[in-house]
């Protein structure tokens, strides 16, 4: 378990100023504030290699801190870097995405995290997770990214539009398209399991 922030969190703009001046502790606090969200986003976008990607995103963020306007919120700036970085990685790999939870280690982690006492329910959840993973894998990153930002990270449409440099209408259309793809992929699962 990595170090967490203890005590009151200092003002974010103050942390950024300190980090810009080369204060490692301040930069560490910023990382600790956002690492779980960035890690989650990377994991859902890329699957394996999410930790390395998250680290690279924070490094890029640090190098770009000089250009950051401290009067603006930090998360759109950080997620913009994350979004572009994940798209670059996917482009380099030449595939849409790698299926999530492909290796045994990840599968074990998920099993530990689940607390369903009913074996049937456990199986259903595992099947649903598999179906969601497959749906995400087959979905274009252009739909997956805004879908994760909106539904998982709770980022507003306006902020997603800023992150992706797109009009709000296009962002909405992409999220709707992503939901439709998810729904189509999961329909067979819902029908089999009786809705």
């Amino acid at each position, binding site marked *: *378990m*990595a*170090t967490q922030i203890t005590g009151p969190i200092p003002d974010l703009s103050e942390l950024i100023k300190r980090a810009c001046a*080369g204060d*490692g502790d301040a*930069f*560490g606090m910023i*990382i*600790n504030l956002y*690492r*779980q969200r960035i*890690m*989650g986003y990377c*994991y*859902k976008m890329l699957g394996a290699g*999410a*930790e390395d990607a*998250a*680290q690279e995103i*924070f*490094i890029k963020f*640090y*190098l770009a801190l000089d250009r950051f306007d401290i009067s603006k919120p930090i998360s759109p700036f950080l997620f913009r870097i994350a979004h572009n970085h994940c798209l670059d990685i996917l482009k380099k790999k030449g595939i849409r995405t790698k299926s*999530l939870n492909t290796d045994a280690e*990840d599968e074990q*982690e*998920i099993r530990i*995290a689940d607390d369903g006492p009913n074996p049937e329910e456990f199986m259903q*959840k595992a099947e*649903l*997770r598999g*179906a*969601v993973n497959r*749906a*995400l894998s087959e979905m274009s990153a252009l739909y997956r990214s805004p*879908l*994760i930002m909106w*539904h*998982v990270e709770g980022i507003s449409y306006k902020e997603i539009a800023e992150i992706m440099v797109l009009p709000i209408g296009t962002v*909405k259309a992409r*999220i*709707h398209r992503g*939901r439709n793809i*998810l*729904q189509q*992929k*999961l*329909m067979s*699962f*819902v*029908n089999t399991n009786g*809705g």
Partner: protein
Amino acid sequence: MTGCNEYKELMHKLLDREISPRERARLEQHISLCSNCAGELKAIESGLDMLTAMPVPEPGAEFTSETIKKAFMAKKALARRQKTASWCMSALIGIISLSIIAGCSLVFQPVMEWALLKAVQVLSQLSILLTALNKTVSVINSILWTLGSVIYKIVCSECNPGLIFLASLLVMVFLNVISRGKSPGILLTGGKK
């Protein structure tokens, strides 16, 4: 089924949290009657719930410290690269400037050679002229010196006013001839008619 498209839009509005209470009531009523739409909504909601609740692996214990270390190293490397790039740019500008100068020299070499040759010729002619002028001035100087000596001897030995006047007149005439190359009368009349 044909009327279901309207409710699909309402489903998106519901998930966007933009649905009005009236639209919500209409959607709920439709879903209670249409198993297909109910299945679709169930599929989307369960998928999104799973996506949100999907466990994410915890970053390693050294994640933060390693990231800080790598970020600082990256910043130093970036500064070095920028410095190198600045030097390279300066060197490139220098090379381009020298190339332009060299290119111009090659193009304008015949013109420059001709101009230099002309300049040397003009200077040598000027030098000849100055030498000739110097000789002339020396001759005039010796003549004047001799004349002055003669006049001095006459004046000192004879002290004859008539002779002094005559000698002065001769000198003035002589000077007038040398300086203007015109008739002696001009000097006597002060150049006025």
